[in-house]
């Protein structure tokens, strides 16, 4: 690296440091704030938008909080326009070839993600920075109106994962179902049947820690911890489960043509905070006469899990790869060929969990 490029990297790092310090120094009085528990974290959410604070905290807040064991995690969701600050787009020194911003924040011991803006368009993705020492994350965006539409479906996903990685955990793109605290992790790309399997499970009395993302921690056995109080499902699949059509009629579909709803509105007490994991399942919509499970090679399961961690959780790809390696070698893996009957699917998964742990 030349002296000039080293110096410009140093200058860019200094501007990141100043921004993070400025965020930390911004008093609560200038913001809307909320405190709640996610997993065993006490989370302080601070935002320039009262609406974002309310929506995000309601989607994250534990209703049956576990004992808090870790230091407080502070998440700052700031709009530059609301504070009169420079837009993240205006930091030209943060722009560069792939990996440039990551190198800048890495010099400070931080993690960060700042996607390259499309030329001629305003930057849509926020600039995200996490300081593991202070357990503090920043998501800076020009205005919340620019937030990508999927952000609200999994609030603070990237920051929560960076916090998780800093303590050896991982936010995993997966669902979890359980019986009596013991259960399974359900993985697969979008459309594979994760959410449908989870919904089928809770409709037959199983508990869940989430249908899209869960935190996985390296206990023995590994545990899945709830992050979000929200399910996402398309109207067609919802219509096949008794009681859901009426309960969700008033809802509008999201950017992905799915309904987002609180599953406890329909299945009270269906969310649990922790699931002890005993297997990983990869569902496949197969229209089988009866749902069947087939034990599979860990490497095959790894190939289902690792790519989603790589693409969905920027800034921690290698950690995600390594975590997927460990997780898929620590638990037995099964392919699940789904029937078309949600009640039958739920019963079969429930019986499988009971047999697995008895």
């Amino acid at each position, binding site marked *: 690296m030349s002296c000039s490029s080293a110096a410009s990297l140093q200058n860019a790092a200094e501007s990141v440091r100043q921004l993070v310090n400025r965020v930390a120094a911004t008093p609560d009085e200038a913001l809307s704030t909320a405190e709640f528990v996610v997993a065993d974290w006490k989370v302080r959410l601070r935002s320039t938008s009262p609406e974002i604070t309310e929506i995000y905290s309601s989607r994250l807040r534990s209703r049956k909080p576990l004992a808090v064991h870790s230091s407080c995690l502070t998440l700052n969701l700031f709009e530059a326009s609301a504070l009169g600050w420079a837009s993240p787009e205006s930091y030209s020194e943060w722009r560069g070839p792939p990996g440039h911003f990551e190198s800048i924040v890495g010099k400070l011991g931080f*993690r960060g993600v700042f996607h390259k803006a499309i030329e001629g368009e305003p930057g849509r993705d926020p600039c995200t920075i996490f300081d593991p020492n202070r357990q503090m994350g920043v998501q800076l965006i020009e205005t919340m109106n620019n937030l990508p539409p999927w952000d609200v479906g999994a609030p603070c996903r990237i920051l929560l994962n960076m916090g998780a990685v800093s303590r050896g955990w991982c936010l995993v793109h997966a669902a979890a179902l359980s019986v009596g605290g013991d259960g399974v992790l359900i993985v697969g790309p979008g459309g594979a049947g994760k959410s449908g399997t989870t919904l089928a499970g809770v409709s037959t009395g199983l508990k869940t820690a989430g249908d899209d993302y869960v935190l996985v*921690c390296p206990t023995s056995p590994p545990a899945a911890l709830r992050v979000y109080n929200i399910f996402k499902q398309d109207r067609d699949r919802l219509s096949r489960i008794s009681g859901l059509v009426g309960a969700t009629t008033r809802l509008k579909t999201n950017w992905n043509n799915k309904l987002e709803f609180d599953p406890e509105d329909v299945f009270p007490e269906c969310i649990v905070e922790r699931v002890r994991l005993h297997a990983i399942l990869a569902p496949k919509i197969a229209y089988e006469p009866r749902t069947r499970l087939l034990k599979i090679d860990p490497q095959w399961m790894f190939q289902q899990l690792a790519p989603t961690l*790589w693409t969905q959780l920027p800034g921690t790809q290698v950690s995600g790869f390594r975590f997927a390696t*460990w997780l898929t070698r*620590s638990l037995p893996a099964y392919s699940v060929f789904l029937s078309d009957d949600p009640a039958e699917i739920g019963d079969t998964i429930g019986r499988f969990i009971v047999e697995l742990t008895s």
Partner: protein
Amino acid sequence: MTGTAAHLRVLEVAKPDCVTEDLHGEIVVLNLVSGVYFSLRNLAAAVWRDLAAGHSVGSLISGISRVDERIAVATAELIDKFEQTGIMRQASPRPVETEPESLASVRTGEVRLTFESFDDMKELVLSSPVHISDIDDQMGWQDAART
């Protein structure tokens, strides 16, 4: 390569271009430059651990050849693959304090040099920047995995 040169040939894991995990005896290696990842099991994993610990190529091959000449030839070919695929590279000799695990494995009849490569994540790996601090992470589960 002459016998003396082979005896002096020492390899190391090609960090930071590669990240490795040793889980339940299996080595998983991701080459961030090529986007290909590898799974090494059985005797192949033992050979990897020996090389990573600093055993010279020659000392491993000559030790194994005293037990089974054919396995020694196959092991030498495997070690060449480690270099060809960019997951190990030449290194300076360094002191070794352990007995070679691979030789003990061959003596107990282990002859499976299981070395698989996968390129299903190649496009993903090559298209996204990797966080340097991410590579050196010591994750909490690693201790659990070793016990």
